[in-house]
């Protein structure tokens, strides 16, 4: 977590680091690895022309995203759960939060069995029942929607500090320029919602580098201007990411108001599968490691897992993803003849008013 924002922060974070359990570290490693494997599989499917459109991988951002995911609580029977609006590079967080590799692949293949039923694809997926808002493409549009969910819950008395459900979403360095994000963060700060924004500064916005996306010293300097608490971390470092993101989430749960984590890392692939990223300078590549590799090495070095255990884990995850791909490939495409092509949920506005009160749980 460099630079941390104050000595108090730094101390708390050191304490947090020490407090990371072995289980948490291993869960984190698992989701980061699974995300990498899922992404690789998606690229294989893309390269064999099975994916309509492009694939946007999270390569280089798995460790940060997994640090989000392991700290989130999925909704379940009797449990309201957190609300999460993932963007394109949050694969590991999605998986940890309950998205299955099968649904990831279904969506990429346009299968009717997937949560988006072939209507929307690739990263534009989510499942409201699972607490995941499906992104629209327009960057900056999701944070205010997450705020709306939290506001709804506050109005229903469902935010229970010091152990509240929280809302979380991410944005890239490029996306920080959007007015929509500004408006949302301001509202979130005013409402003091239990919200966490993870800014993944992967140094580049499609082909545009940081110097053309913002001119402040560090994006974390935006936090004070909203009245958010700011955290910084090395998004390629598992421990650093877990402590900062975990700390921010815990603070939000306690009712300490909205939090903003700015992570430094590097996009290790093109913007999408169609982009060879030749514009990436070697200097940048030299400055950042591969978080997934670093996390494996650290886990081995720290004795969290041994090589045999790691190999077994990798094999397990690969088998999981292989099976998901096999299943998904065999499933049905949507059928234009049977699709209801309905854009309104109200069956007949000419019959309204009618019994609608229960339609919206």
């Amino acid at each position, binding site marked *: 977590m460099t630079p941390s924002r104050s000595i108090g922060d730094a101390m708390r974070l050191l304490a947090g680091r020490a407090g990371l359990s072995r289980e948490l570290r291993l869960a984190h490693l698992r989701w980061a690895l699974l995300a990498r494997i899922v992404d690789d599989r998606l690229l294989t499917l893309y390269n064999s022309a099975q994916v309509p459109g492009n694939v946007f991988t999270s390569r280089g951002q798995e460790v940060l995203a997994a640090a989000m995911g392991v700290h989130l609580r999925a909704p379940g029977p009797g449990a309201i759960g957190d*609300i999460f609006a993932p963007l394109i590079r949050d694969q590991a967080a999605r998986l940890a939060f309950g998205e299955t590799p099968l649904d990831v692949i279904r969506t990429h293949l346009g299968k009717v069995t997937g*949560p*988006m*039923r072939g*209507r*929307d694809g690739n990263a*534009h997926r*989510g*499942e*409201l029942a699972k607490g995941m*808002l*499906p992104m*629209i*493409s*327009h960057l900056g*549009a*999701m*944070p*205010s*929607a*997450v*705020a*709306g*969910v*939290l*506001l*709804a*819950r506050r*109005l*229903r008395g469902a935010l229970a500090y010091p152990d509240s459900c929280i809302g979380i979403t991410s944005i890239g360095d490029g996306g920080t320029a959007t*007015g*929509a994000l500004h*408006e*949302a963060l*301001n*509202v979130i700060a*005013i409402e003091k919602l239990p919200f966490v924004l993870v800014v993944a500064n992967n140094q580049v916005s499609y082909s545009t580098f940081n110097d053309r996306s913002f001119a402040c010293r560090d994006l974390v300097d935006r936090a004070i201007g909203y009245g958010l608490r700011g955290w910084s971390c090395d998004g390629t470092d598992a421990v650093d990411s877990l402590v900062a993101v975990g700390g921010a989430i815990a603070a939000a749960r306690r009712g300490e108001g909205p939090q903003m984590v700015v992570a430094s890392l590097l996009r290790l692939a093109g913007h999408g599968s169609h982009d060879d990223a030749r514009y990436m300078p070697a200097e940048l590549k030299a400055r950042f490691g591969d978080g997934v590799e670093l996390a494996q090495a650290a886990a081995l070095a720290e004795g969290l897992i041994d090589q045999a255990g790691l190999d077994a884990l990798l094999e397990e995850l690969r088998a999981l993803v292989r099976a998901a791909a096999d299943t998904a490939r065999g499933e049905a495409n949507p059928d234009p003849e049977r699709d209801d092509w*309905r*854009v*309104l*949920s*109200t069956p*007949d*506005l*000419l*019959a*309204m*008013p009618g019994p*609608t*009160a229960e*339609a*919206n*749980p």
Partner: protein
Amino acid sequence: MTTSYVEAIRAALGDALRDDPRVFIYGQDIAGSFGGAFKATKGLSELHPERVINAPICEDAITGVAIGAAIDGMRPVIEFQFADFASIAFNQLVNHAATTFWRTGRPCPLVARLPMGGTKGSGPFHCQMPEAWLSHHPGLVVVAPATVADAYWMLRDAIACDDPVIFCEHKYLYNHLRETGDPRLAERLPLGAAVVRRAGSDCTLVSYSAMLHECLSAAGVLEQEHGVSVEVIDLRCVRPLDTATILESVAKTGRVVVATEAWPFGGIPAEVVAVIASEAFHLLDAPPRRVCAVDTPIPVQPDLYAAHRPHAADIVEAVLETVRF
């Protein structure tokens, strides 16, 4: 006892807040003793302090908040201070709210209230009519009540509707239109239904919102001074269109004029005329006509303003040309 258009809106909001704990209102300057730029929420925050919430000047986020809350089971009603400022929320409305049900299968029941339309001296940015540019993208219901009773019931039904509803309220009508009695006791028509406001046989006159009243006075003049019997249809809901009611009337009259206070290009009358021309071509005895505002921004100076917008006289003229065709 009479009730004004804005009082009906306030009553609908108050009753919805009272009856349904899922309802809350979010917008600029709506809370406290102030109660909104047009007083549509006056008194409501005293009764429901937690559910009448002042927002900063951020129409995009206001709409995003409503989308999230709607998805999570609430019935948010957002107020734009003027319809003109909904342009800032365009993206959230047409790309987020409008697509949510289609993409996710989960409804997005928000209501966006847009105080719209011309008032003297208000100029290019406080008089606009937003219904056309919010109607092209699929997924939004767009309504524009013209009567006090509709102001009440359509707002109640918009809130009850599971889909995002753009509720266009006419600022001129707020305090200029009064009806006798309690709108709660008035007829509650289906949200999506057009209605014949005056029966007639020579020409169909289609309109909505404040322009309906120009049409009704034009119909009076046409009857009294020209012996022309005009059937006046109030669209009420401009998207989706109740084409059956329109076509039924055209089947009877064979002639149609569509009037709006909005700009001509691609407006609601273009759609109405296109539907009629395609689906009721054989019923038409004369070319369908549109009466619209002058195709420039809305001028502030009263003489220019008066020349910019259509009046009953323009409608009379258009109907006469149509029936004399």
